[in-house]
Every structure is written in C-alpha cells, then in structure tokens.
C-alpha cells in the first residue's frame, strides 16, 4: 500500500451550474450574471459546471462569449475552472474557448472531472 498526505487550501469560489441547451444568447446572459456575482465577491475563483449541458453554436459564438467575459475583465481577476462532459466534441470546443480566453488575459482552464478542477483551484502542499 502506498500512502501520501497532502494539505489542500482551497480558495472560496463561486459555482455556476448549468443544465440543458446552451446557446450564445444564454451564455452571454450567464456571463453577465456571473460578472455581477464576481464583482460582489471579489477575490473568489469561479467554477463553471457544464457537465449536464449540450452546446449549440460555432467558433464565432465562442469568440463572442469570450469577448463578453473580456467586457467584464475587472470582475474576473481570479481563476475560472470549467467542468465539461467527457466527449471529444466538447473538449475541442473547450480548447478553442481556452485559447480565446487566454488571449483575453484570463486564467481559464477546463476539466472533465470536478476533482481536477478543485486541485487547480487549490494550493496543495505535501505534508
């Protein structure tokens, strides 16, 4: 049996969970709502849980959503972790979105597992 101990210090975060079909207009509305919350709870990271969603739209729509995030850049100073379904199509979309968000200057990463997102949002030290 191998054993190790790690200490997790996880920053407070805002979790937005979405279900159902996501299109551009709804995504933009969600970003605006998130910006209000992020502005109010400054210093919090963001976790977007999209595991129970389906996505409509193309790369142009993704760029428009990234631009909406950028419009609220001051509200989103911390990490944004996105949890997506474990499919090749969603991964490809998420990679494109990540490129857009990195170009806009965000700390943005996507994950297929909630656990990996928490790891990324945490400061982890070996005991």
């Amino acid at each position, binding site marked *: 049996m*191998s054993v190790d101990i790690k200490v*997790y210090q996880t920053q407070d975060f*805002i979790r937005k969970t979405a*279900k159902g*079909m996501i299109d551009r207009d*709804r995504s933009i509305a969600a970003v605006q709502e998130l910006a209000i*919350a992020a502005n109010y709870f400054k210093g919090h990271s963001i976790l977007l849980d999209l595991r129970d969603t389906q996505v409509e739209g193309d790369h142009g729509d993704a760029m428009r959503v990234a631009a909406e995030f950028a419009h609220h850049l001051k509200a989103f100073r911390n990490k944004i972790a996105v949890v997506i379904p474990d499919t090749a199509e969603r991964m490809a979309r998420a990679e494109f979105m990540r490129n857009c968000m990195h170009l806009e200057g965000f700390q943005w990463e996507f994950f297929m597992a909630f656990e990996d997102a928490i790891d990324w949002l945490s400061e982890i030290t070996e005991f």
Partner: protein
Amino acid sequence: MSCSLTLYKPSDFMRKTAAGEMDLERSLQAVHDLAEAAGFHRDSHILIDVRETQSTISHIEQMRLAMEFGNYRHLFHNKIAILIPPTSERIEKANLMQRCMEAEGFEMKVFLSFEHAIDWFSEVTPLDETT
C-alpha cells in the same frame, strides 16, 4: 437552460490517499501518520481517499482501527470524510467503520464521490436560482 449560482467557502483539508492492499498493520500505520499530520494542521478537515485500495480488514480489525483513532482523539478536531469505491462490500465495511468512529466521538461520513465530500467540507450558500 437552467442555472444555479452558489457560493462555496471550502475549509482547508488534509488528503490522505492510499492505493493497493489495506491490511490492519498498514492501516494502523496510516492512522499514526494522519494523527501526526492532524497535530500540525489542527483546523483542517481530513479526507481519506481509499478508492484505489482493496481491503482485507475484518469487522473486528475495523473496531481495532477505530480504537486506534480514539487513542489520538485529542488530535482530531474536525470532520473526517472517507472516499471509497462504489461496491456493496466496501459500502458495508465503511458504514460499520463510521458507526465505530461515531462511538469514539468522531464526526465521520462515507462518500462515493469527491464532489460530495468537498460539499460536506464547505459552507455552501445558494446565491440565486433561475430557469
């Protein structure tokens, strides 16, 4: 699309991950390691991740293990979450362990999902719900 917005304030926690075969001797050693760490991080909850293990521990040995935790009761002040594989045999063993630990005065819960353990360690406040 339905959305919910929730605020999470997760408490610090120590995560002990084990893999392979768990027998009594190694489990006792793990309790000692954990007690030492808990002494240093008194405000942290504890997550024991045994999803990648096989357990050879009997019911009597589980009671022995809970007693060993009890010997270090003064070092364990917070919640203890145990993350196990989703099999009926492991769930039954873990539930017995939980009862033994509660008898020793510990606040312990068994989980099949990391996410639910984090929820238990966090102060979770709904901010809004829209559909």
